């Protein structure tokens, strides 16, 4: 990195906040993409930690002037390499923008800076005693800005939807350094093109989000977690549409399998509470009192039992419910070491059973094991392609393509929540038409004429 750039960064952010020492930047080079699928990070990078949008703006101006790429970075919990530097760059960490600015209980909205960890947001909202922020994409260390630019999904999206459904306003530093404010505390807004929605899911290529306003929901007075065991994958998955058809919308409806969930539990020093069954559905039921929870659960349990479920378990204590969600959220962490790649294909909800069956056929065809778990009611699951002898199997790309094709054939998409980032760029042509890709390229050019913001990612 040129001395001139470093000097300028120091004058913008201060000496303490510009880091070049390889020892200290190690934690900023990679994200959670499994190692075999991950691009290799270049080490000629400088990490800068600006304290506000003004400093971010100055960094962007410098980047344009010097032609140096800037990679915005949250907590690094992404799974598609979107935050990994593949050429010498300035890594711009948003960690110091961690203020929750306004918890507006009248409008049910919270405004916070981009670097606020999800866990802190949960805590702040919880303190109101009556409000709730539903999304739970997994790692609670993830930062709000990252959740927005990746349009994160996760477990608690069945009832209220993915990240996109919550964002009502944002402040953004454009790639060219200007600051803009989009949207606001409004629930309806038809003023021109919705640039805000363009930013969501843009994976740090169209602007640096510095602040967001998010919609909150009233907290359910009571919740319970139903753990429903099945003999096998097919039984579990076929039961899901039956429950949904009856009009039940749980807060979450997750699918897991014994081997994976036990590994994850062990990883956390816990144990998986269900003794029988090989495949499990986890449902979070909400209601206004205990009576309602029991009534709802009773009808849901009935439908499941008619569809082959074994004896469902019931968690009512907060700690026991959290523990189940925790174990579920850490499956990936437990599997990561042996994983070549984690996919997040998504199909129409009623097709998820077919998707699972076809993945099973593929596993047989490739003579491998494809662990699958995920968000059953959203049609969004996570097949893992596993290492063979500690490295990516030679059929990795072929198998991945086949899984993608399967999802597309069922009317689905190749990624439902992780995004394109770096690792799926090569798969874009199968998923998007030429016209779509050209349009996207042009949009990128309009926002970032010098191509300095996270170049080579997402489009």
């Amino acid at each position, binding site marked *: 990195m040129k001395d001139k750039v470093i000097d300028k960064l120091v004058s913008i952010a201060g000496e303490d906040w510009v880091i070049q020492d390889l020892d200290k930047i190690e934690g900023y080079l990679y994200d959670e993409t499994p190692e075999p699928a991950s691009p290799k990070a270049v080490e000629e990078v400088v990490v800068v930690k600006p304290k506000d949008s003004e400093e971010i703006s100055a960094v962007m101006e410098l980047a344009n002037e010097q032609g140096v790429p800037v990679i915005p970075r949250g907590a690094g919990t992404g799974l598609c390499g979107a935050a990994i530097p593949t050429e010498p760059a300035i890594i711009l960490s948003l960690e110091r923008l961690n203020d929750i600015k306004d918890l507006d209980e009248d409008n049910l909205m919270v405004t916070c800076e981009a670097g606020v*960890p999800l866990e802190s947001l949960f805590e702040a909202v919880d303190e109101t005693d009556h409000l709730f922020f539903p999304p739970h994409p997994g*790692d609670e260390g993830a930062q709000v800005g990252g959740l927005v630019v990746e349009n994160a999904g996760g477990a608690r999206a069945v009832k209220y939807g993915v990240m996109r459904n919550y964002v009502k306003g944002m402040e953004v530093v454009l790639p060219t350094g200007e600051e803009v404010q989009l949207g606001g505390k409004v629930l309806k807004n038809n003023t021109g093109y919705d640039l805000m929605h363009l930013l969501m899911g843009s994976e740090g290529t169209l602007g640096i989000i510095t602040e967001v306003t998010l919609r909150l929901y009233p907290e359910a007075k009571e919740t319970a977690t139903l753990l429903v065991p099945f003999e096998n994958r097919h039984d579990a998955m076929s039961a899901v549409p039956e429950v949904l058809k009856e009009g039940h919308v749980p807060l979450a409806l997750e699918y897991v399998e014994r081997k994976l969930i036990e590994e994850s539990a062990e*990883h956390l020093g816990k144990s998986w509470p269900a003794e029988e069954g090989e495949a499990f559905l986890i449902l979070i039921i909400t209601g206004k009192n205990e009576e309602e929870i029991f009534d709802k659960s009773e009808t849901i349990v009935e439908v499941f039992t008619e569809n082959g479920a074994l004896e469902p378990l019931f968690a009512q204590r907060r700690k026991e419910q959290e523990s189940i969600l925790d174990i579920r959220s850490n499956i990936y962490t437990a599997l990561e070491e042996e994983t070549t790649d984690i996919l997040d294909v998504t199909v129409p909800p009623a097709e998820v059973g077919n998707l699972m069956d076809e993945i099973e056929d593929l596993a047989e065809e490739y003579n491998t094991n494809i662990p699958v778990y995920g968000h059953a009611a959203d049609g969004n699951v996570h097949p893992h392609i596993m290492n063979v002898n500690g490295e990516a199997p030679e059929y990795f790309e072929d198998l991945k393509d086949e899984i993608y094709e399967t999802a597309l054939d069922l009317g689905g998409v190749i990624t439902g929540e992780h995004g394109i980032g770096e690792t799926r760029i090569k798969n874009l042509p199968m998923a998007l038409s030429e016209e779509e890709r050209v349009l996207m390229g042009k949009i990128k050019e309009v926002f970032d004429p010098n191509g300095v913001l996270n170049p080579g990612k997402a489009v």
Partner: protein
Amino acid sequence: MSDVMVFAENNGNKIHPVSYELLGKGKELADKLGGELTAALLSGTSLPAGELIERGADRVYRGTAERLAEPIESSYREVLVQVIEEANPEVILIGATNFGRSLAPRVAMALDTSLTADCTGLDIDEEKNFVQIRPAFSGNILAHIKSRTSPQLATVRYRVFPEAGIEEGKEGEVIDVELSLGGEDTKQVEVLEERRGKKVNLEDAEVVVAAGRGLKKEEDFELIEDLASFFDGKVGASRPLVDDGWIGRAHQVGYSGRRVKPRIYIACGISGQSQHLAGMKDSDMIIAINSDPSAPIFDYADYGLVGDLYEVVPELTRQLKGE
């Protein structure tokens, strides 16, 4: 009867240092009560009483019995009651170790008298009442407790009070007590085996000393262990060190590891990624040691020491040990 008696917990080889802390506090209480400070040194094999005296005891009641070589509460309860009846103290202080917390209630019930657990503050008020201050509700409240029976027992938390200093050459009385303990046949609990290697249970630790990427080699965990052992604390680690196999999963602190809330958390060479913060930011007190002044951990720390852990950690251990 205005004496204060300290139970000198030992495992037959070594007197537990909490006993020296109790002597310091006990002396202060005895002075206010106008009584003497005594110690009960009960053990499987005879232990020297000199250090208890040099650290403030006026009298040491010393007794040995073979059965005391093992941590069996009912044996200790028999002989401690015997010594209490002989020495007739007003206040009895016992360390709030696992053994102390298990023994004291048996003694209190046997004597039909009061017991306050896990005290962090002790005083004598103007009316000569023994005031015992103890945290409850996970340390969120402090209860001031008084007793209406006598003698008054309290267990006292370790590493809250400083150890009594040594006054070389100080004299005191050693009373050798003939212990009357039932024969083997009266034993209801038997120790079959002593197993080393305590379970790692970070969640319950009072003090956690954790290392992160700042640690260069696996062997250097020794530095971390040294510091942790001063507090009788546990060793933690951030995820990268666990992923590298330097230390077991049970030591991992973070969102994908254990969540801890100790009284003191010392983060050594941990930058404070949110993954890690999720597991420790609710600790009562956080001390961070890191050479990078921009490390996010400093935002969450009560005390941040900017510096190389290889210099700061040994220095901290050294100064804590009063070397």
